[in-house]
């Protein structure tokens, strides 16, 4: 009788939180993956392999190396799906943050020290559309590109060099010939402007 008043307390489904419909699906899928569901993982792969491979390749350039890192990232999604916490951000951001960071870590560990700086100094500001042959178009991707184009030149260049180029902000400052503090602020201002342009939920 007392049991009737007693709530059933257990670890329940993660609260999907205020995210877009697609990402609710992804959060749900990731919870399934955490329980060892291979089919759910295939669905996650289907949604995210393109952006993961795309961003890793954008940073690393070398196709073989990119494939290797993309595979590591996707396997890491399988391995650590239980650590995904929907309260802290969307599933897309969780996976793509992991992908980008791993690509950047690969770049930094390979280019440690002065060799990297020399290379940076001699390299022209690269055109970041040159892997366009394999780029897939999605509505969201198009929107992001439009928003990126709406930034000031310095904001846009700083963000592209940092994110797509995988450069640290001091390297970005060096490449663009501007002060460190300027780059830090431009990156932040530009990203905030992009966020507002795309209506990303914070």
């Amino acid at each position, binding site marked *: 009788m007392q049991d009737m008043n007693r709530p059933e*307390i257990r670890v*329940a489904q993660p609260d999907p939180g205020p995210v877009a419909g697609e990402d609710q699906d992804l959060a749900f899928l990731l919870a399934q993956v955490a329980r060892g569901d291979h089919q759910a993982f295939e669905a996650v792969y289907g949604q995210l*392999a393109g952006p993961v491979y795309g961003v890793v390749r954008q940073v690393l350039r070398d196709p073989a190396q990119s494939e290797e890192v*993309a595979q590591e990232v996707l396997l890491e999604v399988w391995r650590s799906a239980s*650590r995904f916490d929907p309260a802290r951000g969307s599933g897309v951001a969780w996976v793509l943050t992991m992908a980008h960071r791993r690509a950047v870590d690969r770049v930094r560990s390979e280019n440690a020290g002065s060799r990297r700086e020399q290379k940076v100094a001699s390299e022209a500001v690269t055109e970041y559309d040159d892997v366009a042959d394999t780029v*897939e178009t999605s509505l*969201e991707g198009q929107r992001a590109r439009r928003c990126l184009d709406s930034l000031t030149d310095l904001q846009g260049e700083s963000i592209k060099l940092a994110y797509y180029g995988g450069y640290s902000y001091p390297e970005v400052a060096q490449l663009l010939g501007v002060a460190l503090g300027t780059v830090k602020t431009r990156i*932040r201002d530009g990203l905030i402007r992009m966020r507002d342009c795309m209506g*990303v939920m*914070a």
Partner: protein
Amino acid sequence: MKTSPDNMHVLTGSYALDALDVQERTEFERHLQHCPSCQAEVRGLRETAARLAIARSARPPAQMEQRVLAATYRTRQLPPLPSQRLRRDLRQTRLARLFVGWLATDQPRPDSRPDHRTGRRSGRGRRNGWSNSWLRSPWLAGAVAAASVAVAVGLGITQVSTQHQLDSAQARSAAIAKVLDAPDARIEATQTTAGGAMTVVVSALQREAVVTASGMPSLSSSRVYQVWVMSSSGARSVGLLSSTDHIGELLASGVQSGDKIGITVEPSGGSTRPTTTPVATVPLTT
């Protein structure tokens, strides 16, 4: 390179783009733990950065899918983190309402409640031996959830208030979450003589306690429930419980073993010292 705390906030963008070196990243992450507004901003900027990745989406090599899928069958998965389970529980506001209802009509005596998941019996209001099993205690999960109702209600109310108030509400809920997440957090609970119950989660390490009350009867508009830290040297006020529903959560700082948490009924606005006999006290044996 070294960055002063004042300049830390501007690094949110570079952090979200992984454009900090390892040392600065570590420093920033340390700063982030104590900066709820930075956390919120980083979160939004990370989502934005993810869209930059989507804009560069590319078709992976055909054989990659087979390789990855095959690898999953050879790869063991990580278990969830304990603190994450707790955070997840923290968000169960629906659950919390149920729990509050249960507390309000609470008849079962302590020390005989079976754990829903393990089938073991977990003591309630017990002062010793919580050790690590408290993490699996549905009772704590409920109490934590009850605390989160108040946090949620608080945040809901501030929707129409200023950003500053919102920030301080977030900072407070972060401070509360820190106590609930503390490795040595322990739970103490008691019925109040007025009805309803008071629950205290205390961390000796942090010398802080989160006080929640629920199911307490409404008072006339001229009276309020006030929460105190009572020690041998006297009592100091922790704060007033929300008057609308008498569910509240308050953070008591600087507590130590031997102190008691108490609730009294006071004239509206509260008193500087308790003027009535407490309806409940919980000793803190940290």
